[in-house]
């Protein structure tokens, strides 16, 4: 097993990093400091590690870092920060959709992928979009409200 230098474009920043072939994108990202990408089940059930990979929402625990060589990766902090939150993140805060917060970055990523292709989702569409993201504390009620709120605010033009 030999390392290879791969290019990871994360949230608009280019990283050149030497990685072994058996390192998942999840751990490569966390080691680079993107700790908003959470490690949960590591088998594609919980969605805590969700990122956008060339625009598609995926579990980063099931992608090898070498497979993401040259790809565009967006994590939750790539959408917005505490100082300049994304409208989805703000809606999560306003709707009380985060309790322990572990699932939140993945939820936000799935919500972003949904609203990108479907700006006015029904409740069923929202439930379907977050079907791969498990929350074990608030329940899904506030999370669904948050996505609805974000959709309303985005269509009012207060978003991006």
């Amino acid at each position, binding site marked *: 097993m030999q390392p290879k230098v791969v290019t990871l474009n994360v949230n608009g920043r280019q990283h050149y990093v030497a990685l072994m072939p*058996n390192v998942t994108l999840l751990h490569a990202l966390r080691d680079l400091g993107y700790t908003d990408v959470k490690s949960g089940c590591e088998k*594609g059930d919980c*969605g805590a590690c969700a990122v956008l990979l060339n625009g598609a929402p995926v579990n980063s625990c*099931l992608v090898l870092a070498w497979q993401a060589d040259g790809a565009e990766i967006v994590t939750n902090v790539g959408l917005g920060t505490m100082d300049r939150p994304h409208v989805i993140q703000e809606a999560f805060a306003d709707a009380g959709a985060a309790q322990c917060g572990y699932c939140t970055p993945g939820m936000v990523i799935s919500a972003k992928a949904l609203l990108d292709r479907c700006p006015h989702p029904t409740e069923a569409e929202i439930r379907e979009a977050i079907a*791969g993201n498990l929350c074990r504390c608030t329940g899904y009620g506030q999370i669904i409200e948050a996505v609805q709120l974000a959709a309303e605010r985005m269509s009012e033009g207060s978003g991006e």
Partner: protein
Amino acid sequence: MLPEFNLLTPQTLAEALDMLAESAPDAVPLAGGTNLIVDLRDRRQCPAVLVNVAELAELRGIRQENGHVVMGGGTTIAEMLNDPLIAQHAPVLQDAARIFANPLVRHRATVAGNLVYGSPAANTPPPLLVLDAEVELASQAGVRRVPLDDFLVGVRETACRPAELLTAVRWPTPAQHSAAAFRKVGLRKSDAIAVLNVAVRVTQRADGVCEQTRIALGSVAPRVIRARAAEESLLGQPLTETAIAEAARLAAEATRCISDIRGSADYRRRVTEVLVRRLLTQVAGEVK
């Protein structure tokens, strides 16, 4: 932490086949990784070499060719779900794709991976079986086509040989007067492994007489099976309530169910009969 392996990234299909041949049987193709990475992590598979086929252009795309629909093995479940050609010619496949795991998995999981993994509970084999699909298996020796019905062998067992890659799935473009349906029973809506799943397809003449029937059953035997006696019982007959009930009974008889954490053998057998009856009734009304 994943075990150690070498990861090869071919640029072309030919290169990928060379790499697989060179390291067979210790080389395994890697695409979406939604089964393989999990298996590596749990040490259920420990191949020395992984060949990353996720980016190969030769495995992508869905097209029509000589009266067939041809879908690249690297087609993801999400792509299948959004493809207009599949929507037109195989909506039954989209019914299975729609309830496939969850959206995050669907963006990575490929149809080839779903078939090669050989799970009796997999979502795509029942609709592909009722469509009379064949798989294309490529190796250094060339390409061979195998009917999906012969490809599926047992639990985690298929006709795919070491150093072979499933490059495409193809099926005859269904006739206009043919209708199909799929239904999965899971313990929850998303992220559920099937307790059982059923697909049917019926081709009827204008007078309502059945010309061809396909019934495929998942999670009720070591592999996804065709219920042939049930299919044959409907041939040359109008799809009456009695004929459908008899076919459903025969379909349940074809199962070899086991009891497991998701359901008992008896439950599976009974629900197979109910679902086959409902789906046949549904498509009998749809066929024009």
